[in-house]
């Protein structure tokens, strides 16, 4: 299962995606860069940002990517990266995307993720792949 993710200069999510057995595609760091077009089913991993209680949770680059209809149609589910220290804002971006695109929030992990998180997500993505294949046939 393809994993599309955004990761800022601190690279937390980048490092998590790199540990997965599944292929991944990083969204560009700069908002002015062209956003990729993805032609196959994928899962999105997004961290949460915010300069206020309820502003800018979803990274702009993620919004730009999802504004493309074709990308949205291939979005199977979302995984959130976050920190419980942010209270009710924990993984808010992933919740927002799940709500807005009407896809399930599949998993959440904190910071770089633990070994268990990597294993859980790998296995979860395996089973998603299988389910998609079964539906297709």
């Amino acid at each position, binding site marked *: 299962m393809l994993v599309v993710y955004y990761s800022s200069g601190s690279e*937390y999510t980048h490092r998590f995606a790199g540990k997965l057995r599944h292929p991944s595609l990083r969204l560009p760091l700069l908002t002015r860069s062209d956003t990729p077009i993805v032609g196959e089913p994928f899962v999105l991993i997004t961290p949460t940002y915010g*300069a206020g209680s309820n*502003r800018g949770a979803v990274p702009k680059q993620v919004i730009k990517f999802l504004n493309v209809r074709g990308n949205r149609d291939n979005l199977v589910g979302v995984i959130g990266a976050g920190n419980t220290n942010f*209270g009710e804002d*924990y993984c808010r971006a992933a919740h927002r995307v799940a709500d807005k695109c009407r896809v399930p929030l599949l998993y959440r992990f904190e910071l770089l993720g*633990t070994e268990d998180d990597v294993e859980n997500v790998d296995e979860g993505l395996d089973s998603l792949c299988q389910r998609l294949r079964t539906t297709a046939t």
Partner: protein
Amino acid sequence: MSEKLTLVSHVDAINWNRIVDDIDGEVWDRLTANFWLPEKVPLSNDVQSWATLTEDEKTLTMRVFTGLTLLDTIQGTVGAVSLIPDALTPHEEAVYTNIAFMESVHAKSYSSIFSTLASTRQIDDAFRWSTENQSLQRKADIILKYYRGDDPLKRKVASTLLESFLFYSGFYLPMYWSSHAKLTNTADLIRLIIRDEAVHGYYIGYKYQRGLEKVDDTKKQELKDYTYELLFELYENEVQYTHDLYDPVGLAEDVKKFLHYNANKALMNLGYEAMFPSSVTDVNPAILSALSPNADENHDFFSGSGSSYVIGKAVNTEDEDWDF
């Protein structure tokens, strides 16, 4: 004191229109948007709840908060300030001044809690305890030693461990009270502190990793070994401190799980792998949901749930970039 005071050797006028590292700008915005003062939290609503605590519970609460006050005082007057001379960019220097000030706000906010809930005698007793408790003093000594040392990267490690690990033996208690519907306004204030410390730990840890890029592999390994050694030294001391505080109310084992969980997060903020296995980081779900109201929701690929997120009072986002 005979120590030589180190200051930044050269200062240019700071230009926020030329940011070298985007993270500096992002963190500055986040910190200033998060700004708060204890006067905005209606602490007096906790007076009745305070009266329902036993004497042991009151003593514990007072001691926990003086311990936290000490850490915030160190971080405000020494820790964050000691990072300024080694900053890589002028904007990083500015962020540290914000962190230093906010730590002083945190330190003062405990005094607001005290003056609202406790008597002068109780307050004086708790502060006396904080100067006499060996584990607490030792914790302060270990950290201060590294702040005074001459290795800038070790200072960042010590600082990140303070922000992301050392506070949590104390933060546990207000989350525990909150999960029992006690001292809930105090818990709201502590949650604001917890949120700030997350940004501080993230930022100082990030700057540590930027600094690591500039040293050779031998030094990298030395710093990694040092980090785990320091964490272990602090951890052993935290375990003792936890027993000193929480044994009278029987919560020490539960607190330790919270320590393990946060030690892992501190390591991750420094770019290292978690050290404690999941078998000892299974924080009491009530504590976790006091920290983050939706943290105990089940999202495991198989639960089949859509987003069940209830944002509550803030439903509409102000994002303007969505096209659908």
